[in-house]
């Protein structure tokens, strides 16, 4: 119950890492969640699956470099302060 803001930051970093690690061709295409499945027709609206795949792809693209920096900082801090 004693949630601190630091726990929230840790959770966010871990979750973003988990999403960024999902490899496009080795994993996502194999289970039918590849990039080409998200581009549905230009019909009504993208469904939930297309939005989710879009989200995963954009997280991977946008957060790749910041995550490297944040993870490095985290590792150094954990080594120093436990």
């Amino acid at each position, binding site marked *: 119950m004693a949630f*601190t803001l630091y726990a929230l930051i840790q959770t966010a970093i871990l979750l973003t890492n988990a999403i960024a690690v999902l490899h496009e061709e080795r994993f996502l295409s194999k289970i039918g969640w590849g990039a080409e499945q998200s581009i549905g027709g230009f019909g009504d*609206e993208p469904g939930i699956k297309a*939005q989710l795949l879009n989200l995963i792809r954009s997280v991977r693209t946008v957060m790749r470099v910041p995550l490297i920096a944040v993870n490095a900082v985290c590792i150094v801090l954990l080594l120093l302060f436990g």
Partner: protein
Amino acid sequence: MEYPNQSGFRQRKLQAGVRMRGTPGDPRDPSLLFDDTSAGGDKHDLSGVGKGPGVCPGQALISDPMSNLALAYGSSLASHGREMMDKNLDRFIPISKLKYYFAVDTVYVGKKLGLLVFPYMHDNWEVIYQQDTPVAPRFDINAPDLYIPVMGFITYILVAGLALGTQNRFSPEILGIQASSALVWLIIEVLAVLLSLYLVTVNTDLTTIDLVAFSGYKYVGMIVGVIAGLLFGRMGYHLSLLWCCVSTFVFTIRTLRLKILSEAAAEGRLVRGAKNQLRMYLTMAIAAAQPVFMYWLTFHLVR
């Protein structure tokens, strides 16, 4: 030492506290969020910028020209720094947009609190717009505000401290722990709602701050429950929490229905289609999360 600029600033803030009595319910100029009280506060500008002794307001010991100069330079530096900070801060936190959410008055707060506890008699839940922007909360009871959530949050922490104190479990760190815990749950809830709104591709004008406001309204019910638990024991806590949970549930559904669902479905006509059904489920899920959080954040306070 009296800095002329800062005393003017403080005086303007004091006058701002008095302005609440001013024109309630009179949308003479609804684009002006707060009444204009700048008439009395701007007279204190930099008079006598280091011109010599005797110009400084009524301080007998400032007769030295050097300290006069230093005084004037320091106050000009302070005002310049404040301007720069205001300009830069506005880029990160939209201060002007935040001001809209705090444009409330006592009548609005009273009616809104009553609506949160008893939303069953109110029938018109639409937000009044004025040329594409919503009207300030002062003139429309259905508009979301941030005043009640912020005050509710702070009161919740204080009441939690009080409840823990009556059980001899209090220490000053507990207040910090409760505060950060509740804040973290609020952030998680807002992020979850944002994610689900994105996934369901709802075209709505709900901003993040609106969602924070709607999530913050549950603190009112929590406070009522905990206080009833303090006064009347566990039975009082359970009964009043049940009542507040149901009212918050109904309030959230009725408010969010107009924002998330399409026009036809919001008026109560049964519109078939998977899209509307999904949105209805989303609204119900958001509303159902409120009682869960209300119970989760208070049950450990009442033993």
